[in-house]
């Protein structure tokens, strides 16, 4: 095995050393947090008025969880600890309503996040001679830019292809002899289904690795990708609130994801009780970011369900491994790697006067990709009797949804009263994608 380290001292440090580092960094994050409007109220309410009030890592658990809703209520600047002149980058991600969540990075924060990303890339054995085609979307989403920065730091040649335009993606792979892809698993499978159409064979390409993430997928999907493309596929875990990809990454052993514990404190809790679950048990991932000071985030409830491995890894890294994401403890939907909440869709469609009382969100597989269909009822009193009105209404709903959730779903209009009613336990989301 070709085991490479980006920062061997930290990656292989003994547990005591990592815990010591975590405590030092936590104190430092507390100092920053006390400068934010949000934590400057919350921390004193549990008796934390200065970093010195944190004596051991157990003191972390005195701090209440931070929820996505806290981010929404404190949007846009309630968790900012510095003047915006210190900020060099922001990213946003979907909130449960039209209000997104935002993160801020200072130059130092960005440097630290980039370093963690570089460490993740290196752990897979990728290096300077590799050519990375980064097919995650650039922009407000963290997936594209954060990987880009990390890969540049390692010294890979980066093709900032972003998502979409499958034919051009394949041309880029071919022309520039791409060796590594950063991509969602469903899109990678979709590309395979298109190769014959473009007259390209897998053997024509120079692919060696893929970093796959941004959507839950099974071990079966990973194996399928590896067999179809004759490559190694490495699982990646991250979330916008924690700086995006690179929170945890697989090493060459591909045996679940090393969570970089010098950068993040991970807790696995029972989502119902909030109590820690015993080691190795499945629960909700709670993360404290130790490397971002411009916008501290402590004990953040990710709503991702996973477990931690307790056995060490053969690669020599001491950072514990997080399982693949097994599900969600909320109703967030992940459609082709894009996160959204049913409540966002509801907020949009219920504001449109021509839409009746009921709606339904359907998610299905269309080949390798996900397909989102939003079904709404026509409000009978607003119907003017014209097909043009219906067609305009459908495109209006599609456009307004795209503005909120960034993708444009298929819109189906139904007769009044034909969808399951709001009363009782109406099934608002019908997800027929195969279970993992």
């Amino acid at each position, binding site marked *: 095995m070709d085991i490479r380290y980006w920062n061997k001292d930290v990656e292989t440090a003994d547990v005591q050393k990592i815990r010591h580092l975590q405590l030092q960094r936590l104190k430092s994050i507390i100092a920053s947090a006390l400068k934010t409007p949000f934590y400057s109220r919350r921390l004193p309410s549990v008796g934390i008025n200065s970093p010195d009030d944190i004596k051991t890592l157990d003191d972390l658990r005195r701090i209440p969880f931070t929820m996505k809703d806290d981010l929404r209520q404190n949007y846009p600047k309630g968790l900012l600890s510095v003047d915006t002149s210190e900020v060099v980058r922001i990213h946003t991600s979907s909130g449960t309503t039209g209000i997104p969540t935002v993160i801020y990075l200072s130059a130092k924060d960005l440097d630290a996040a980039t370093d963690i990303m570089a460490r993740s890339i290196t752990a897979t054995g990728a290096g300077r001679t590799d050519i990375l085609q980064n097919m995650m979307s650039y922009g407000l989403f963290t997936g594209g830019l954060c990987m880009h920065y990390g890969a540049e730091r390692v010294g890979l040649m980066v093709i900032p292809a972003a998502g979409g335009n499958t034919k051009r993606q394949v041309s880029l792979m071919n022309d520039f002899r791409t060796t590594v892809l950063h991509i969602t698993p469903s899109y990678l499978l979709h590309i395979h289904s298109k190769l014959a159409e473009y007259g390209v064979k897998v053997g024509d390409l120079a692919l060696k690795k893929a970093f796959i993430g941004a959507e839950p997928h099974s071990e079966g999907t990973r194996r399928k990708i590896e067999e179809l493309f004759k490559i190694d596929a490495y699982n990646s875990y991250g979330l916008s609130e924690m700086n995006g990809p690179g929170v945890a990454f697989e090493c060459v052993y591909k045996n679940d994801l090393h969570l970089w514990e010098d950068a993040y404190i991970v807790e696995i809790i029972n989502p119902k009780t909030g109590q820690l679950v015993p080691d190795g048990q499945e629960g909700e991932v709670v993360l404290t970011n130790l490397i971002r000071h411009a916008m501290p985030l402590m004990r953040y409830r990710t709503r991702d369900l996973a477990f931690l491995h307790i056995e060490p890894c053969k690669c020599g890294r001491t950072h514990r491994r997080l399982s693949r994401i097994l599900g969600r403890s909320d109703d967030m939907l992940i459609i082709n790697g894009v996160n959204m909440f049913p409540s966002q869709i509801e907020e949009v469609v219920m504001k449109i006067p021509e839409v009746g009382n009921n709606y339904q969100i359907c998610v299905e597989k269309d080949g390798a990709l996900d397909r989102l269909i939003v079904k709404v009822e026509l409000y*009978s009193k607003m*119907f003017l*009797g*014209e097909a043009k009105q*219906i*067609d305009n209404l459908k495109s209006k709903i599609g456009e307004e949804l795209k503005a909120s959730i960034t993708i444009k779903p298929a819109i189906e209009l*139904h007769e*009044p009263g034909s969808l399951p009613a709001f009363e009782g336990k109406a099934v608002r989301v019908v997800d027929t994608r195969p279970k993992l």
Partner: protein
Amino acid sequence: MAKQLHIFVENKPGRLRAITDNLQKVGINIRAFAIQDRGDYGLMKLIVSNPEQAHLSLADMGCACALKDVLAVSIPDRPGNLHRLLSVLVDGGINIVDAHGFVLQPNQQGICILEIENLAQTNAEQVVRKAGFDVLGNDQLNNL
């Protein structure tokens, strides 16, 4: 002006029957109908014996429906007559959104139901009458 009942229907089995069932229960006679297919939905368009009553009955059932003014033109069932009617409209700069026609036996009377774009803002009725066609109102349609 003649009234046509437009009903929004999903493209799925049994929907049209639900509408005819409702109308037959209140004794409405369907004189003519057409369906404008739009893929996942359609518009059912009915010429009925009592449009207002039919509208209320379907609205009570929760249907999305609307009464639309249409031009009901009587044309003798002979070669070239539809062409003549359409020429008159084209020359008058009047656009047809949708149309359907039927022929009444035994007097070989053709009836053409025309949905006209922005009907109220056009002089479509005068143009058609001036060309020698009869334009029928609701009562005349009912008494055919």
